[in-house]
């Protein structure tokens, strides 16, 4: 198709010309999604680990809910956050709607369940290997969680990456709570949606290619870290 060739050329031109608008959008995308990922990891890792090592009534229900939340539609998350942050909503007094902070909040809600559920699986596997040794050492629950999180660090890096991938690629939530405001809350995905709606498919696709290249770069970086770790049998 003509437009794909156009898009590749345009993507190269955008990047090589150092288009300031493009870099602003890319930087905001990374800031919002990386911040959301870091915060979601800070919440999701310990929750996932705690569920992984605990046996309690209703644990299966918790697992089912956690896994179901992985499939939260971004638009629904966007609406929920909008309703809370709207001036007429309970948190409206904070004045956060249509700010990058609102986008970060929406993405945290979107990906924290993914990170918790995936890390629960990772930690549970590791725990089945370590649990007898840890019980022999009389580790407390907190010590167990800390040790498991540290020893699973390279697998958890991949888990964080999955969360980041979803955050940086979603459009439904950020377009509602961010508003796609130029120079304020416009990120890669909302810019792509806008250019598509303008019928400028080549530019939309070019932005998509830039997003893809960024995703490739982040994945390659994490992969090389994991390869180094694997050589040391730390994975």
């Amino acid at each position: 198709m003509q437009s794909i060739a156009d898009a590749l050329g345009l993507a190269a031109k955008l990047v090589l010309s150092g288009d300031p608008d493009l870099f602003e959008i890319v930087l905001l995308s990374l800031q919002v999604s990386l911040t959301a990922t870091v915060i979601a990891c800070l919440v999701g890792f310990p929750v996932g680990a705690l569920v992984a090592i605990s046996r309690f009534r209703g644990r299966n229900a918790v697992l089912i809910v956690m896994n179901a939340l992985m499939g939260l539609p971004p638009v629904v998350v966007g609406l929920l956050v909008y309703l809370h942050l709207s001036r007429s909503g309970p948190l409206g007094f904070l004045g956060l709607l249509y700010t990058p902070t609102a986008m970060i909040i929406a993405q945290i809600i979107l990906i924290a369940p993914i990170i918790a559920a995936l890390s629960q699986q990772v930690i549970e596997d590791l725990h089945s290997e370590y649990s007898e040794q840890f019980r022999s050492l009389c580790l407390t629950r907190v010590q167990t969680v800390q040790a498991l999180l540290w020893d699973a660090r390279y697998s958890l890096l991949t888990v964080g990456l999955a969360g980041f991938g979803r955050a940086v690629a979603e459009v439904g939530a950020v377009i509602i709570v961010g508003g796609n405001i130029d120079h304020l809350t416009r990120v890669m995905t909302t810019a792509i949606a806008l250019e598509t709606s303008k019928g400028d498919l080549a530019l939309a696709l070019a932005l998509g290619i830039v997003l893809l290249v960024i995703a490739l770069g982040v994945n390659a970086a994490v992969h090389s870290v994991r390869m180094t770790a694997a050589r040391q049998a730390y994975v």
Partner: protein
Amino acid sequence: MLARKFMATTAALIIGGAAWAQDQSIIVQSTTSTANSGLYDYLLPIFQEETGIQVNVVAVGTGQAIRNAENCDGDVLLVHAKPSEEKFVSAGFGTERTDLMYNDFVIVGPAADPAGVGGMNDVQGALAKIAETGVLFASRGDDSGTHKKEMALWADSGVDPTAASGAWYREIGSGMGATLNAGIGMGAYVMTDRATWISFGNKQDYAITVQGDEDMFNQYGVIPVNPAKCPSVNVDAAQTFADWLVSDEGQDAIAAYTVADQQLFFPNAPD
């Protein structure tokens, strides 16, 4: 170094996001057509240059823009559905509605013109003919200003297209651009505002088939959100923006905006 700068700006985003978005800036809840046509990209730098007020545009359908404004999530409303706008003001959400500018709606269709409506300037007749021949028609279907206008025209033509929803009548449920993309993709006729059409980039073999009926007049209005209902409104800046748009200077700027040498919007604010 870069990482530290990154962290600092991120922290600033989180902590200062609220304050930053408020002081010297307003939020305009706007219809998509004005945003997608590039009008704001032309107008807003001129306005900001003069007043120092930053205008942040949230471009959604007219229906959603009005609901967002009713939730106090905006300082100014700029849409094109006069009855809804008047209801918004009479309910106390807006201070005053002023006519701002107009353009017109057109019906675009494939070059082959399977319904044979090309060149018609009687829009009701054209719609009836499309319904009769059963050629695909793609509607916004999203409660937007364009959608409301389209439904009013169908009513005048004596056809209830929603009875054929899913058959020849396709309700896309999206913005103007997405509806054009979808409609063009399926070979359907689409009603769009002229400004969006002129600046639309994915026309393929489509052209305007129906235009020129006065019933397809598309009036835009501007309404500052009422601080009595919404105390968070940035009253002075919102009023400054609304006043500037209807001033001679603002009206001249609107008239001066062209795409492909065509004027997209025609200012008609009362003196």
